[in-house]
């Protein structure tokens, strides 16, 4: 666990919040992400209600559920990305390795350095080359590195994203010139280059063809050696293929908040879930 001062090699950690201080994580149960009593609001509207969840570190957790049930909102609350929207706020706590991400002295920017994110649509920076896209997280955070170091980070991240062989001869070309699947792997390389602890993926394959999807799924299985992965997906086969645990979100009706119905071992969710609603959803008898 990287809890001491260095969040990422080479990135100077400027904030002195509790995030970067050593904390005492003796209790094994505190490892990973622990969500307790989380309510997520947009203004006065309660979008997601009362979520308790333990996301184990170095595993893949899939979140499934019908559209509008709040799973993306929940995912974005894990690295405080939902705060980008005006009036969005939460009640309850999200603890990463024992540190409350919503603690009053915690900087959301620092949270996002430890909890990275990959989006539905690949979004490489159009002004940057492939190389610059990979090190964007470091360069944009004003980290000054020697060329040899960035070269090493670029190669390691691109290899980690199974993209190195395809792009090593054109690192100076614009990232937006790649195919959709390659762009998404570039975005994964960009997210992993800053060495976060947790990687959030919001429907990372829904804009991709089956072959690119397969490539990303294989990549996820490799990435889980080093990262805690949470993935939102509409594709239940995908959840069944890649995840260790699966959480099912549902919504009672429009205007009502989304809730976590249950979360369990993926095998159990897809074979013998505890809740009837989950059973209905995974067998397609629902919505």
């Amino acid at each position, binding site marked *: 666990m990287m809890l001491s001062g260095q969040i990422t090699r080479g990135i100077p950690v400027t904030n002195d919040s509790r995030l970067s201080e050593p904390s005492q994580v003796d209790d094994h149960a505190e490892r990973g992400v622990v969500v307790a009593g989380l309510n997520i609001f947009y203004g006065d509207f309660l979008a997601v209600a009362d979520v308790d969840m333990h996301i184990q570190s170095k595993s893949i957790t899939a979140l499934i559920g019908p559209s509008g049930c709040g799973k993306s909102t929940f995912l974005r609350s894990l690295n405080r990305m939902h705060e*980008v929207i*005006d009036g969005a706020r939460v009640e309850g706590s999200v603890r990463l390795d024992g540190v409350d991400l919503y603690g009053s002295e915690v900087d959301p920017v*620092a*949270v996002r350095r*430890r909890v990275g994110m990959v989006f539905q649509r690949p*979004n490489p920076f*159009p002004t940057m080359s492939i190389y610059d896209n990979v090190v964007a997280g470091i*360069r944009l955070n004003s980290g000054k590195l020697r060329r040899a170091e960035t070269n090493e980070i670029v190669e390691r991240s691109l290899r980690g994203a199974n993209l190195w062989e395809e792009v090593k001869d054109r690192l100076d070309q614009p990232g937006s010139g790649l195919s959709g699947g390659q762009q998404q792997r570039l975005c994964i390389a960009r997210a992993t280059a800053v060495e976060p602890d947790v990687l959030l993926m919001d429907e990372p394959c829904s804009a991709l063809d089956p072959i690119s999807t397969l490539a990303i799924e294989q990549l996820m299985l490799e990435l889980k050696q080093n990262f805690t992965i949470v993935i939102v997906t509409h594709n239940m086969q995908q959840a069944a293929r890649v995840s260790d645990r699966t959480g099912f979100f549902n919504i009672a009706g429009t205007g009502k908040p989304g809730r976590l119905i249950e979360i369990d071992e993926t095998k159990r969710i897809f074979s013998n879930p505890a809740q009837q609603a989950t059973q209905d959803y995974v067998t397609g008898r629902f919505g």
Partner: protein
Amino acid sequence: MTTVLDDRSASVVGARRMSRNVQGSIAGAALLLGISIPNLLGDGKWGWVLVVTALSYVALIYVGSRALEGRRQATDRLMRATVTVAFALVMLPLLSVTWTVIREGVGRFDGKFLRGTMRLSPEELLAQRDGLAAGGAFHAMVGTLIITGLAAAIAVPLGLLTAVYLVEYGRGRLARAITTMVDVMTGIPSIVAGLCAYALFVIVFGPGSRTGLAGGLALSVLMTPVVVRSAEEMFRLVPNELREASYALGVPKWRTILRVVIPTAIAGVLTGTTLAVARVIGETAPLLIAAGLAQETNVNPFDGRMTSLPVFTYYQYVQPGIPTEAGVARAWAAALMLVLIVATLFVLARVLANVLKPKGLR
């Protein structure tokens, strides 16, 4: 069954189309009408010839197509002809102005004009009276560059920062108020901006204070809203996904704006800024009041009057000196200079935008 299919394919493949020759004859007939009608009515100026030719072409192509090709094709041809003619009519004044300025201006566009000022020695005054070239607009060119440069130096940072505020931070009543104020500023008559700047400098520096700085200030009032509006549009065009991608990497908001939003939008922002400069570089009225008229080169915007090319042009026209042709020729040459400066700015902005624009955008 087969007959139905045949009929249908025949109606698609065998649709009657006017041949190129027929279309050419229609254009020729229109030209004939365009030449003859104005001449018969006693006014054969080429402007009328063009207008009548264009209108008769639209009418003839519709009638001809209706008779030969049917209603749908005729409507298509009518619309196409109308759009083309409208475009041509819009281009007409542009070409006419450009051509006139070049034709009239090139006569005095010489070394004396580019290097000289209007502080004429007795010998030069005599030479001018004998019909020789004398006097120049060097001081006015310097003035234009300094005054416009000052205006841009004030308006561009102000406008860009306002646009960043409106797009990235502004919410609620303050943002709405600023947007409204920017709209109101767009509508300020330029003479009012000149009066405001003049009044301000009179209050601070005493009556009769006319300086390049006052002129630049007046122009910046006109320029700021244009910069704000164009930059705002460009920043809004930057996809939110890019901002989110940056936030998700743990990049603070201000750095995201500086390193992601602005670089992505820079090409459009530059074009908009150039348009704003072009908008004010030809302003005359505010500079008449705020910067005044000078006959010599003044490079100090904080002291003394400073002339710009439009003001120079205006004075050469209303006070041409003896003989009047000398002044009018200088006015045309100054107008040509102004057009060349604006054109250069546009080319520069285009080149810069092409160099800086995001690569590989689909």
